[in-house]
């Protein structure tokens, strides 16, 4: 992808100036708006700004989602509650995965549409699924199933566990990945959750616990699937020369939003690759840093196998070699390992904040604020979110 070389890397004109996170938990029984306001006010104050400074808002996936608790707070509610005067705002579900809302904010700042954009992602899946007794599956509501889903749901491929299980199965077949090796990812996240009192599941998890748990959609078992939760994360994206508190700034080095494969869960020619591979190529084409410079990785683990697609796409190991690479376990991906991975417990143990928990954690690590789980001297972090045709990744650096 040398076509990017010599062009302006616009994302470097933006910084993450503040971060916020509501209480995160199971069945909190609070509204999406209430959680969002907590996270938003925290992020705005953290940036050294006030509500009057915020002139942009961006969110994912907007109000369109049919899945219970998936999108319980609209931009309109947030704008009105905070009385924001906006130059720019946007929310939507079609784009490079959950981080698309972050990338839009970065673009808005870089192009001069706005100076300080509030980005939020809120979920109340735990409360909503409990109240409606509906899991996060497509086609269980009253509305007609459309888009790509109309070709999958009639065959009872109704859940992301089904769609992603197919990828995992193919990878195991082609490259010999075992469930024991895959299990290193949930075990790692659980070890990290024990160090972070905001994580949801913190009790020790053994390999036997993992292997003995019920299968959800083979080869994915219970502990390969993340934890629905209630919570909100927010960040403020500012023009690099407008951030008031430079001590807290996290710099944007490069992002990847590419989708060069087919925009579908099941039509990609190579079913061991996803958008993660496309995005990663774009990211590395936009920076002189390399995979060896990464101090910590916060990579999507909505399902454990998705972390493998990101690790492989980003080039932490050659294609197909996830199994042997993961076997080193804690020495490889633990807090004291070569690549501390998902240091907040990820979504597998920390809660399904749908991409933005990783972003919050990467910023905390780069600022040296990750109490009890700090990666010593962390200066470069990679964050990624999404699975299948949805994917986006970003390389962040400490302002040192």
């Amino acid at each position, binding site marked *: 992808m040398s076509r990017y070389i010599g062009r302006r890397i616009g994302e470097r004109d933006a910084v993450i100036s503040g971060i916020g996170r509501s209480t995160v938990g199971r069945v909190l029984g609070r509204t999406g708006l209430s959680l969002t306001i907590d996270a938003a006010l925290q992020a705005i104050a953290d940036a050294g700004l006030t509500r009057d400074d915020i002139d942009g808002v961006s969110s994912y996936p907007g109000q369109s989602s049919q899945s219970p608790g998936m999108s319980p707070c609209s931009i309109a509610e947030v704008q009105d509650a905070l009385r924001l005067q906006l130059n720019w705002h946007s929310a939507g579900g079609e784009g490079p995965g959950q981080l698309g809302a972050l990338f839009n904010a970065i673009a808005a700042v870089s192009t001069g549409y706005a100076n300080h954009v509030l980005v939020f992602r809120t979920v109340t899946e735990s409360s909503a699924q409990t109240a409606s007794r509906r899991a996060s599956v497509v086609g269980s509501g009253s509305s007609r199933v459309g888009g790509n889903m109309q*070709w*999958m749901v*009639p*065959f*009872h*491929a109704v859940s992301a566990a*089904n*769609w992603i*299980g*197919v990828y995992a*199965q*193919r990878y195991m*077949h*082609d490259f010999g990945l075992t469930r024991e090796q895959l299990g290193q990812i949930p075990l790692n996240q659980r070890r990290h959750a024990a160090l972070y009192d905001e994580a949801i599941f913190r009790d020790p998890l053994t390999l036997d616990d993992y292997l003995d748990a019920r299968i959800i*959609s*083979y080869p994915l078992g219970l502990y390969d699937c993340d934890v629905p939760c209630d919570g909100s994360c927010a960040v403020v994206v500012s023009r690099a020369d407008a951030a008031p508190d430079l001590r807290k700034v996290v710099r944007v080095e490069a992002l990847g939003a590419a989708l060069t494969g087919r925009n579908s*869960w*099941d*039509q990609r020619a190579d*079913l061991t690759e996803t958008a993660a591979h496309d995005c990663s190529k774009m990211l590395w084409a936009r920076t002189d840093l390399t995979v060896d410079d990464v101090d910590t990785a916060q990579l999507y683990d909505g399902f454990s196998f998705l972390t493998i697609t990101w690790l492989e796409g980003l080039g932490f190991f050659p294609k197909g070699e996830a199994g042997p690479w993961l076997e080193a376990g804690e020495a490889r991906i633990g807090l004291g390992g070569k690549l501390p991975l998902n240091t907040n417990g990820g979504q597998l143990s920390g809660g399904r904040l749908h991409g933005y928990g990783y972003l919050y954690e990467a910023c905390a690590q780069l600022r040296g604020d990750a109490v009890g789980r700090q990666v010593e001297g962390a200066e470069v972090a990679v964050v990624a979110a999404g699975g299948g045709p949805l994917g986006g990744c970003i390389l962040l650096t400490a302002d040192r």
Partner: protein
Amino acid sequence: MEVPYVLAVVGLDDAPDVQLTTRLVDVTPDEVQIGLAVEVTFEQVSDDLYLPLFKAVGPVEASR
């Protein structure tokens, strides 16, 4: 829907750009392997609606 059931992505010999997410029938999960040769069988689900499901035509050695 009774569990377990077998989901599959099926490649078509005469349409290499198309892969169908579908369900395999008349086969147990243990009997399924990647590369299994399958053929279509239509399940009628309403007066004018049929779903293309697939069943094995026999084992094959190599995956595609």
